[in-house]
């Protein structure tokens, strides 16, 4: 790779980090976002788990995965519409950051937020019910790569050329909620009905939950290597689609 290309790449990586820092400062470090990130997945999970004859410790992987999924994909869909509304999007686009770097920054911010907040159920699970991590690698992969995949999904959902965050929220929930139900968060995939087992592989959350279960020493539905490859694949696909649709959305927005 030539020196010029190296400079271009390092410049874009730097720009992505700057955008991520800006996102965290402006969009993530807000009390309502933090409260939403902590409270919503917990209560959503409890609403489905309470009353079922499942040991509390067995709920921890699902809760962790749910927290990761919600926090990593919560704000990403809204960043671009907010920036379009505030006209700050134009500022970013006319800077030396490429659209890819801007989106990568949005993904990084969401993923970082997800990873940080997934520590809460991890700690609560350990302190409260003694759920200990027995296998670090699948746990780390499930959380870290999962966070990137979910955050990329969030950024993909922000692609429609609109300045209205409410429209994007509807779309985001329409996509995210079904993914949760088919992913083995509430019950292991092996215990799902046939149709559930058939669609589970299409949700990135399925692989993340599976890896987190592996981290807690539980039996997995997919081989660990397959889960890691699948989440990496989902991350790459979501990001590529996000880049494609954002590019197209920009063209459409001004035509």
């Amino acid at each position: 790779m030539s020196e010029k290309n190296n400079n271009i790449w390092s410049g874009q990586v730097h720009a992505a980090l700057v955008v991520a820092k800006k996102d965290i400062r402006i969009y993530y470090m807000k009390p309502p976002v933090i409260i939403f990130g902590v409270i919503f997945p917990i209560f959503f999970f409890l609403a489905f788990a309470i009353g079922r004859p499942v040991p509390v410790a067995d709920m921890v992987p699902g809760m962790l995965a749910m927290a990761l999924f919600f926090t990593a994909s919560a704000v990403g869909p809204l960043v671009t519409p907010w920036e379009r509304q505030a006209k700050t999007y134009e500022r970013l686009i006319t800077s030396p950051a490429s659209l890819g770097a801007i989106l990568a920054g949005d993904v990084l911010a969401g993923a970082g937020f997800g990873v940080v907040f997934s520590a809460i159920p991890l700690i609560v699970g350990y302190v409260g019910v003694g759920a200990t991590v027995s296998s670090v690698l699948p746990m780390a992969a499930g959380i870290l790569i999962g966070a990137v995949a979910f955050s990329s999904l969030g950024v993909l959902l922000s692609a429609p050329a609109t300045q209205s965050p409410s429209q994007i929220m509807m779309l985001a929930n329409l996509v995210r909620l079904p993914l949760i139900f088919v992913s083995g968060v509430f019950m292991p995939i092996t215990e799902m009905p046939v149709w559930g087992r058939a669609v589970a592989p299409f949700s990135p959350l399925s692989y993340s939950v599976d890896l987190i279960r592996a981290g807690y020493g539980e039996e997995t539905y997919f081989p660990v290597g397959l889960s890691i490859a699948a989440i990496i694949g989902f991350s790459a696909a979501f990001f590529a689609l996000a880049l494609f649709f954002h590019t197209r959305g920009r063209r459409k927005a001004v035509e």
Partner: protein
Amino acid sequence: MNIILESKELVRYYGTHLAVDRVSFEVRRGEIFAFLGPNGAGKTTTVRMLTGFFTPSSGTGLINGHDIVRDPVEARRHIGVVPEEANVYVDLSVWQNVMLMAELHRIDKRTRTERGRKLLQAFDLYERRNQDGRVLSKGLKQRLMICMALVSGPDLLFLDEPTSGLDVKSARLIRDTIVRMNKEENMTVFLTTHNIAEAEQICDRVAIIDEGRIAAVDTPDALRSVVASRRSVEVTFSDGDYQSLSPEGFDGVEELKPLSQGFKLYSATPGRVAQQVAASAIKKGLEIQNIRTLEPSLEDVFVHITSGKNKRSENHE
């Protein structure tokens, strides 16, 4: 390289509407270049293509030799942009807004801190550096946007209506600082404005765009010479029946425009017309309150070019 910005046959469609039609011009390094045009003429669209916000439907541009279509990131590295609408981050402080732009341009910490401090001081914002963008007035936001655009030390600064809607003090501060930076740091300025007096006052060259096409590009003096017939004599009277002078009959008068207590006479020979007016007034015993000859202004040029009668015939370059 003497040319810092070259627009090459830029075209932009919105759906089927042709907004910018084969716009070509050059901006020389170190000059202040004004881009004038009526509302909807294609000014902002042209700027947005040159700054990378829109992709041209066809044509391209070069900024410091970098193609805005093929090498947009490198082209944008050399520019600072102050858009028409305020777009500071309202949740960030004044200082954080400026530093964000410096970091996006990869300016090292020491330089950006020093430059940020100097800019905020120059634009009277340093004392407010910890205030959030949301609490700033329109004028202060405009100043902040200029600081954000300048902190990277751009070779070329795009200003889209920078003094529009501002109070006199803010507008003057912005104008004076930009002119000073242009002179001291040889920074090229591309100024889009409705304020023709502002363009006349500070710009080295002017382009006039109308209905998406470049109608004229030249120095203000050269453009004024195009409308030499718009020289005029303005005369007002203290009292009396000044209309009895019948000034339209004087030699060389091409057009008469009534004023509240007098008239304005357009002529290519305003000195001679002024003599006739004075002689006639003395003969009729009328007291002249004020009489002066006027050279055509850039506004006259603008109106002349965009009024339709000479469209697309004045392209000087």
